[in-house]
């Protein structure tokens, strides 16, 4: 259910820097001209068109690019090609770099942070701004909270001019930049609202040596519940950085996160799925995944869930926990038995079904040689024991 911080399928669709910048540019945010490249040749051509020194930046959705060597300066097109050669193919936190952004190198006088986020605690959109922009912004938030301005937006009438002024004065912008800053913040706000974003941030927003504002880096995270009305944004999703198993799960309507343990979990409901994982751990095991099969536990989805779980060679046992509630337990049991019969690889399965006709369900499961359990704690213990006997 709902917005899980660790369920990217539910609630967040992160866009790459260059995609985020394309969107912001459409709303009047000053973004340096840049081009993407997928090989050194393209990087050289791009640098030649841009002219002058450039920066070559890995396009990955994970943080810490700079420290991992994914952002490098180049004085000439040949150097840009050499830097692109180094960066493309680089592994950054397990993600292979396939695309780089080649952009003019800015001469930076000041770095600011400017972001808009949906704040669930405050129940509104909130502007976050700081004159201490850059990669250390989170550290600043901890050590010097006064350096960060949090300004809630009015939920019904949105960004107001006095708020724009307040942020500009808080950042201590030179008077001649305030007008441009207003356009930037209004553009960021419009992009946030019209894209149905959960987050739109510019970090850093820089003042260059020549006294211009530029959005040097940007990140937009979309609300996937709203993608139905933004078909043009859906195509900007970068699937290459997602686990193939997680993409397959999403296509089957299953909420799935791969983990490193040996006990596959199949549960209906996100909260109960997390609880099942917690109890596996409490019983001395390690969950292999988070999997929320959704409502109803229909036979085709159960079959898809089995395939996704067993695709992971680490899985030694599967724990199925379905709180049927109104759903008939015997139907779910039949679905599980049928789906299991078509599987290539067999591992021990512990099944716990609660709901209408749970007794009949247990009989069906036992007849099919599945391990049943009365309680969730019992199911977790049996799954851990079954996985142990396989290893």
């Amino acid at each position: 259910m709902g917005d899980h911080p660790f369920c990217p399928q539910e609630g967040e669709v992160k866009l790459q820097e260059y995609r985020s910048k394309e969107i912001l540019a459409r709303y009047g945010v000053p973004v340096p001209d840049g081009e993407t490249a997928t090989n050194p040749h393209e990087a050289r051509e791009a640098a030649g068109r841009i002219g002058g020194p450039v920066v070559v930046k890995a396009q990955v959705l994970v943080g810490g690019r700079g420290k991992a060597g994914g952002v490098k300066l180049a004085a000439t097109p040949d150097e840009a090609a050499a830097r692109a050669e180094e960066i493309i193919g680089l592994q950054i936190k397990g993600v292979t770099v396939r695309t780089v952004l080649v952009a003019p190198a800015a001469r930076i006088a000041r770095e600011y942070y400017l972001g808009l986020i949906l704040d669930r605690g405050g129940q509104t959109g909130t502007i976050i701004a700081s004159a201490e922009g850059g990669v250390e912004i989170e550290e600043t938030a901890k050590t010097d909270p006064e350096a960060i301005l949090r300004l809630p937006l009015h939920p019904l009438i949105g960004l107001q001019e006095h708020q724009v002024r307040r942020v500009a004065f808080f950042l201590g912008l030179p008077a001649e930049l305030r007008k441009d800053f207003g356009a930037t913040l209004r553009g960021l706000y419009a992009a946030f609202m019209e894209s149905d974003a959960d987050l739109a941030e510019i970090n850093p927003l820089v003042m260059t040596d020549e006294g211009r504002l530029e959005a040097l880096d940007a990140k937009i995270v979309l609300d996937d519940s709203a993608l139905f009305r933004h078909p043009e944004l859906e195509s900007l999703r970068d699937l290459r950085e997602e686990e193939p198993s997680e993409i397959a799960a999403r296509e089957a309507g299953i909420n799935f996160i791969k983990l490193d343990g040996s006990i596959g979990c199949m549960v209906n409901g996100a909260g109960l799925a997390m609880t099942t994982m917690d109890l596996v751990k409490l019983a001395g095991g390690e969950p292999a995944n988070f999997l929320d099969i959704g409502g109803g536990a229909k036979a085709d989805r159960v079959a898809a869930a089995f395939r996704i779980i067993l695709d992971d060679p680490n899985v030694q046992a599967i724990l199925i926990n379905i709180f049927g509630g109104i759903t008939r337990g015997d139907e779910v049991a039949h679905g599980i038995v049928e789906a299991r019969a078509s599987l290539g690889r067999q591992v021990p399965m512990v099944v716990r079904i609660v709901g209408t006709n749970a007794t009949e369900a247990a009989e069906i499961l036992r007849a099919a040689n599945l391990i049943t359990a009365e309680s969730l704690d019992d199911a977790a213990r049996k799954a851990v024991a079954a996985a142990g006997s396989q290893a």
Partner: protein
Amino acid sequence: MSILVGAQTRLLVQGITGREGEFHSRAMLEYGTQIVAGVTPGKGGQAAVDGRVPVFDTVADAVAQTGADAACIFVPAAFAPDAMLEAADAGIPLVICITEGIPALDMLRVHHVLRAQGVRLIGPNCPGVTTVGGAKVGIIPGDIHRAGPVGLVSRSGTLTYEVVQAMTDAGVGQTTCVGIGGDPIVGTTFIDVLQMLNADPKTEAIVLIGEIGGDEEERAADYCAREVRKPVAAFIAGRTAPPGRRMGHAGAIISGGAGTAESKRQALQAAGVRVADSPSQIPALLRDAGVR
């Protein structure tokens, strides 16, 4: 007493002729909930759920003719914001929205408009509210309950059923169980429900079921320490969840250190709340606190 809904509630169901709406309306009627009207635009004049519930084209018509005083919403996500506003405009003081997948920015507007109108919104993306022996509004299975002295509030769906079942199996009954929903923007928070349960004379103890993400549980802990004089037991799901794939720097700045299961458990324990490691421990924690 109990809270929010009861035998006196005159319920209207928006989207009653849809598959989900009809299925769950039937279950609500079986539980004993008084469903006085259904609304599906274009199907006014028909009767839904085996001819037991009159259907109206608009909520305003339904309210005028039946005196409905609560609405339960099953309409698809793209139309649910409008359905909530329609219920509020028709003067319904309590709106319970089951629909999941509503865009957050739509909810932002609806939430604040309904609040300005003095309407109590539960959800969206919630299982609903059941007052045991009074009324079931939403999709919480009716037969997992047992009447008793414990009020429950939860951000989750099936996990709520799990905890309620564990309580019922152990002979610990409930007054009202409220699912507030797991979306970023919800109409009613833990604190709102804690306040109601704390003031409800029938409720002697409270169960809070939370999960990782956001800082609602931390705020609730703070409220328990300051205001709640009844015993509270809690369970937080997600201790083994991998560290979040966070939302940029702003997410970290907004949340501070809050959001992890450990942060929530510690905040609740510091507030005197009894925190369970498993849903099955909840009944024993309530017994320890003196619940009969």
